[in-house]
């Protein structure tokens, strides 16, 4: 009986630990800590043999340093790519190279075509056999767990941890995928467009100095603090994040939410805030400014992130951005 009871406990602990571990590695949805910035190398590839017969001799060879510090070299465009990361899916789609994606994971939500290709991984596992059977010439992952398994199976793996809090990394990644797929022209266009859209918003807000205090509830009063992509978005939109004194995602004390009195609350479930009597005197609730995220565009740091920022800007500043 002792043992069985302990087993029960152990299962609980296991689930908790697993969930916890997963939380920290599923950075594209929940960037917890500042991460090492990924250095994308496109210089000093002279030691790699040039593929002179290639049409792409101005692009290849191309080398990327992955999050382990290992150099991954490309001598021709990757034709069949298994992409296990939402931001990368978005990026490849945006540069018109979607046909190269042969499989993805269960949580691919965008583009709509993602539902039509095979799913070879979920939150905890990867179906190695299915991946090998597809015979891809590149597997892209954002966490390290299965990298060595994939490499042992003879596959080429590019492992890049998810973005930290810097929007410039998004444009770097667009360019990187442009090189890997051999479509550098389109990628440079897209990356310029991304920068433009972001700086347009910045420009339109340059005369706004009313710093609205904002609180985002991603569920159960968990909220992004400093060193998160969301905090970067808030700064860009001239919002004053009430959780900016903490780093990463934390569960915020309700007493402090009332005390800091946000003017705007972005909630997963606006009902959970507006029907809660403890928040009835908070400005955001009194002035009916408890909103839902307009879409899931801000959940991945791909090119669609610019759209997410625009959508949010329209909801928060209808007088500046119009509301069509």
């Amino acid at each position, binding site marked *: *009986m002792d043992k069985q*009871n302990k087993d029960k406990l152990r299962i609980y602990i296991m*689930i*908790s630990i697993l969930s916890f571990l997963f939380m920290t590695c599923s950075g594209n949805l929940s960037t917890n800590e500042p991460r090492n910035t990924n250095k994308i190398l496109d210089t000093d590839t002279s030691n790699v043999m040039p593929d002179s017969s290639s049409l792409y001799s101005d692009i290849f060879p191309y080398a990327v340093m992955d999050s382990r510090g290992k150099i991954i070299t490309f001598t021709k465009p990757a034709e069949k790519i298994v992409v296990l990361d939402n931001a990368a899916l978005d990026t490849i789609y945006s540069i018109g190279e979607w046909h190269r994606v042969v499989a993805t994971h269960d949580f691919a939500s965008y583009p709509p075509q993602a539902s039509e290709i095979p799913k070879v991984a979920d*939150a905890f596992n990867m179906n190695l056999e299915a991946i090998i059977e597809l015979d891809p010439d590149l597997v892209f992952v954002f966490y390290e767990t299965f990298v060595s398994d994939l490499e042992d199976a003879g596959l080429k793996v590019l492992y890049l941890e998810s973005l930290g809090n810097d929007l410039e990394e998004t444009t770097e990644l667009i360019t990187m995928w442009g090189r890997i797929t051999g479509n550098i022209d389109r990628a440079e266009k897209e990356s310029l467009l991304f920068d433009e859209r972001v700086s347009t918003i910045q420009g339109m807000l340059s005369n706004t100095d009313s710093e609205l205090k904002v609180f985002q509830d991603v569920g*159960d009063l*968990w909220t992004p603090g400093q060193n998160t992509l969301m905090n970067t978005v808030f700064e860009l939109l001239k919002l004053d994040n009430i959780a900016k004194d903490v780093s990463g995602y934390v569960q915020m*004390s309700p007493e402090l939410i009332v005390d800091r009195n946000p003017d705007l609350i972005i909630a997963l479930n606006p009902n959970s805030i507006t029907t809660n009597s*403890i928040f009835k005197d908070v400005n955001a609730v009194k002035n009916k400014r408890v909103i839902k995220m307009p879409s899931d565009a801000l959940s991945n740091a791909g090119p669609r992130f610019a759209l997410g920022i625009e959508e949010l800007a329209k909801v928060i500043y209808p007088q500046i951005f119009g509301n069509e």
Partner: protein
Amino acid sequence: MMSLSYQSNTEGNEDKLTYPWRKLGVAFAVMIFIALLAAGVGAVNIHPLIILKILMSKLPFVHIDPNWQHTYETILLQIRIPRVSLSCLVGGTLAISGATYQGLFRNPLADPYLIGAAPGAGLGATIVLATSVPTFFQGINILPLAAFVGAIGAVSIAYFTARNSDGLPLATLILAGVAIASLTTALSAFILIRSDPDVRPVLSWLMGGFIHAQWKHSIMILPYLIPTVIVMLVHGRLLNVMQLGEDHARQLGVSVENIKLLLIISATLSTAAVVAFSGLIGFVGLIVPHSVRLVWGVDYRFILPMSAISGAAFVTLADLVARTIINPIELPVGIVTAFCGAPFFVYLLRYRRYVAM
């Protein structure tokens, strides 16, 4: 026999035949002190004088000009005190249910979650939090309802699995509970794995906490707690008899089967009610009754009320730590109960010469 294997630690000059009301009184006073402390300290610093003024102003016939920030009133009356109230009720209930199960099953590892209540509630909560089932239905949060139904459902399945024509063999009930627990835990894990990878809400619910505590939660669980806790309290003497073994108890004229049913229903109902609003706070229902037994002896007439009072004080104190230690971050209270409770329990085991059941 079972009960004789405890070392009685009753010290001092008190007459052992009289009921130790004084100890209960002192413990109750300590609990009230902890509750007041917990109401006075929080993430937002409010001066004790202002707290006193706010409280006084709420009394009838007292008029004080509200010269304090009105948010302080919300923080104190709508967040902090409801939270202290809920943590007292939850802690007390988990501890007395744990004590009841330990007495009933005569098993030192028994806690209120022994026969499936926790994994059942966990499954209910996971379904609501991690699938497309809406958390709010017509403005009502269905999470507590799902947890409550899950807990009652799992225990009922275990109960009816174990029950046979001769009655209810407790060892079979525990095994059935373990089987149901494995099944529901596997289901929860499956749902979690197939769900959106942001599992923080589920995780923080599984660890337990009072971050959403409101007055109405305390009020909603009272109708479940009052009758069930009274039933458990009045069965102290019969639980003492049960320590001799079911057959002996039967020979002494105790209707064993009725008591088992009544106590299992009481402990399950009260546990399901508190778990619905607090999540799965571990450890309390296990170590508080043991600690009481180690310090004050084996009489269930005393263990039951003392566990309730100590459990309330312990959980309130743990929640105070959970919400203030890393300001402005909330920790799940389950982490604190285990982190602070385990060393204390190890100390008791080591120095109170505990002999296992």
